[in-house]
């Protein structure tokens, strides 16, 4: 069926794959009608998709450094866009985002703007120039541009802090989904998740991760869009929700006005299980100050342009030109999911609070709601809760509580979709979390194996030995991440946002000025990276311990402070020390021109 070069056959290969996956969904739907249990469907979905990724990972095995680190630099733009989108959209985007919008409305949607707008910076300031350098990792760029092991090492430190914060959250998400779908305790599920993650990346490195990420994107986008369209049609909201939900948005505002946002007494709130929230903010009204909105968006945008696991995806394109285009495709594929998240939040909210819909629970009697099947299921999973605070016997808006994850995970069930959709959503969430975790673990392991081991410790190491070191590190870092994830220290979304702030504190200006300011030198870059990271982390610790903060910078936007310190330190120290030598300045000139060999390819 498939002849010739694998790259030439990509559309065919993934076309067949997508068809096969849809076939699998149909088979499961038929099996459900024939009496297959919900639990068996959940297990089948997760096991089937993970097995496919593992096969792709195995088929992509390689013994070449170029293939292991940058997928042989031959990934076509559109496919790299899909892989980046999967790499980018984590368990947080998939499972938590719609929930955040559901509870917080407009203020939360700064994340949607920030997590897409950042790619404008990636495309215009960084990706094409870093591609021209021809490096394997982000610290590799820093080390080559500024020269010296100290700069390289500083970059590895920032990368590790940011990516490790991020990856524990992703392994946590993988574990949560695996534990629900496979019905095993979280502590074990985390390691099941980890092994699935390592199966994709161990043998093939970046090549394996690239082709599994494309496969994971296809699963996650189907799993996200299908329920949104289905629910919208089922509750009669419109055939194409993105263009047709204006009436529903207006209806929610009307209902919110009618119910009002009643504040619960502190004593009442204590009875609500931890992690659940009620609706306390308007759905579509502006409920944040401009600066609160803009500062969060800005932090996420600069963080996007500093996160190494995203940047290294653009090292895999065949050319500089392709790297630029590929950024456009990435945001397009991300846009498909992000523009659907507010629609899902709208549908979910309307289904629950509109008393004229059969699914609405507000205004129904408490005992009636407590008898609903889905309420019992999700109440048992600790994701839903009602309580009659005012003692009038009916459910009020302020008496209904839900976990953030429930918006994505439970809405299909609430709207009365068959269980096969819930199984599909679980597989999608798993794909989202796995693909991001893979990118992150690989980014850390590659930085340590390439930049610390090969470039600093043993520059004469043979390829075979380097790749063994890279793989051992992959496993070690994965297990370290899983062990911390199993301790469940922080929530998923909070640590994801921190990762952005750490990355921008230490890396944004050293990367950007490396291309755009020839005068930037090694001393300045090192000062920028280390002082930026330290001051950002210091601010976070200060605010976490009761510090008041300043300029409205919170623990979610501390990167704004860190990166400002980084910029000042970098400029001042660069100007105080001598300019980079002529060879280095020539290197920057060459990086600014797409034609010709890569910088590292010449050396």
């Amino acid at each position: 069926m498939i002849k010739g070069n694998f790259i030439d056959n990509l559309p065919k290969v993934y076309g067949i794959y997508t068809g096969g996956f849809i076939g699998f969904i149909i088979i499961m739907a038929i099996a459900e009608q024939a009496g297959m249990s919900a639990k068996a469907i959940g297990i089948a979905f997760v096991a089937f998709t993970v097995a496919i990724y593992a096969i792709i990972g195995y088929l992509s095995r390689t013994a070449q450094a170029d293939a292991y680190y940058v997928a042989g630099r031959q990934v076509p733009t559109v496919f790299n866009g899909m892989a980046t989108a999967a790499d980018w959209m984590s368990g947080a985007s998939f499972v938590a985002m719609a929930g955040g919008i559901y509870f917080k409305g407009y203020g939360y949607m700064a994340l949607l703007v920030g997590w897409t707008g950042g790619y404008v910076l990636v495309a215009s300031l960084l990706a094409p120039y870093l591609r021209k350098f021809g490096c394997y990792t982000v610290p590799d760029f820093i080390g080559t541009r500024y020269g010296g092991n100290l700069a390289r090492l500083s970059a590895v430190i920032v990368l590790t802090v940011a990516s490790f914060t991020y990856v524990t959250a992703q392994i946590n998400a993988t574990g949560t989904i695996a534990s629900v779908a496979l019905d095993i305790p979280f502590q074990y599920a985390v390691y099941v998740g980890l092994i699935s993650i390592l199966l994709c990346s161990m043998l093939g490195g970046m090549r394996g991760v690239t082709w599994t990420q494309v496969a994971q994107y296809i699963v996650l986008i189907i799993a996200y869009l299908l329920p949104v369209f289905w629910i919208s049609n089922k509750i009669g909201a419109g055939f194409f929700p993105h263009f047709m939900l204006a009436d529903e948005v207006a209806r929610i505002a009307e209902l919110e006005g009618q119910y009002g946002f009643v504040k619960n007494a502190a004593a009442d709130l204590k009875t609500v299980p931890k992690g659940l929230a009620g609706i306390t903010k308007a759905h579509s009204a502006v409920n944040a100050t401009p600066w609160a909105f803009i500062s969060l968006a800005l932090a996420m945008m600069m963080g996007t342009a500093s996160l190494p696991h995203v940047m290294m995806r653009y090292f895999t394109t065949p050319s500089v030109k392709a790297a630029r285009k590929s950024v456009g495709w990435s945001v397009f594929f991300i846009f498909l999911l992000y523009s659907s998240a507010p629609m899902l939040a709208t549908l979910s909210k309307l289904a629950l609070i509109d008393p004229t819909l059969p699914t609405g629970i507000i205004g129904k009697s408490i005992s009636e709601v407590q008898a609903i099947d889905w309420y019992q299921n999700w109440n048992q999973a600790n994701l839903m809760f009602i309580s009659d605070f005012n003692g009038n016997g009916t459910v009020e808006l302020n008496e209904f509580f839900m976990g953030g994850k429930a918006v994505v995970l439970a809405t299909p069930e609430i709207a009365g979709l068959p269980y096969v959709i819930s199984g599909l959503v679980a597989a999608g969430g798993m794909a989202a979390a796995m693909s991001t975790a893979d990118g992150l673990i690989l980014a850390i392991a590659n930085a340590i194996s390439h930049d610390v081991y090969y470039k600093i410790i043993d520059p004469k190491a043979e390829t075979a030995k380097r790749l063994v070191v890279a793989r051992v590190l992959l496993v070690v870092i994965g297990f370290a991440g899983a062990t911390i994830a199993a301790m469940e220290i922080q929530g998923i979304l909070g640590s994801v946002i921190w990762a952005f702030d750490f990355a921008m504190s230490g890396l944004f200006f050293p990367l950007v000025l490396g291309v755009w300011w020839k005068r930037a030198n090694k001393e300045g870059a090192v000062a920028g990276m280390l002082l930026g990271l330290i001051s950002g982390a210091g601010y976070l610790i200060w605010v976490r311990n009761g510090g008041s903060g300043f300029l409205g910078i919170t623990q979610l936007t501390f990167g704004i402070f860190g990166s400002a310190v980084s910029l000042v330190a970098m400029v001042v120290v660069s100007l105080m020390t001598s300019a980079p030598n002529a060879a280095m300045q020539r290197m920057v000139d060459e990086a600014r021109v797409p034609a010709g060999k890569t910088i590292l390819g010449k050396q």
Partner: protein
Amino acid sequence: MSKQEQHWGKTRALLFTTLAIWFVFSMGIFLFGAEMESITGPFGYPLTYWFTCQGSLGIFVILIFWFANRQEKIDEEFGFSERGED
């Protein structure tokens, strides 16, 4: 001015245009979030809401493709573009 300096001058000009558009739709308009709220935007959504969930996101997608094409033209003009592969 050498060919390379001219090329870089144009590249930088394109960067500033791109960043200006980016600034307007990622931050600028949200300074007026409360003022735009009562305006009805595309498909009947409140305008601020529409920008946060579709408008700005879509504009970024278009902006990046537009930027990539313009930059390619600049590279070609000075003979700095890569040959062959895409």
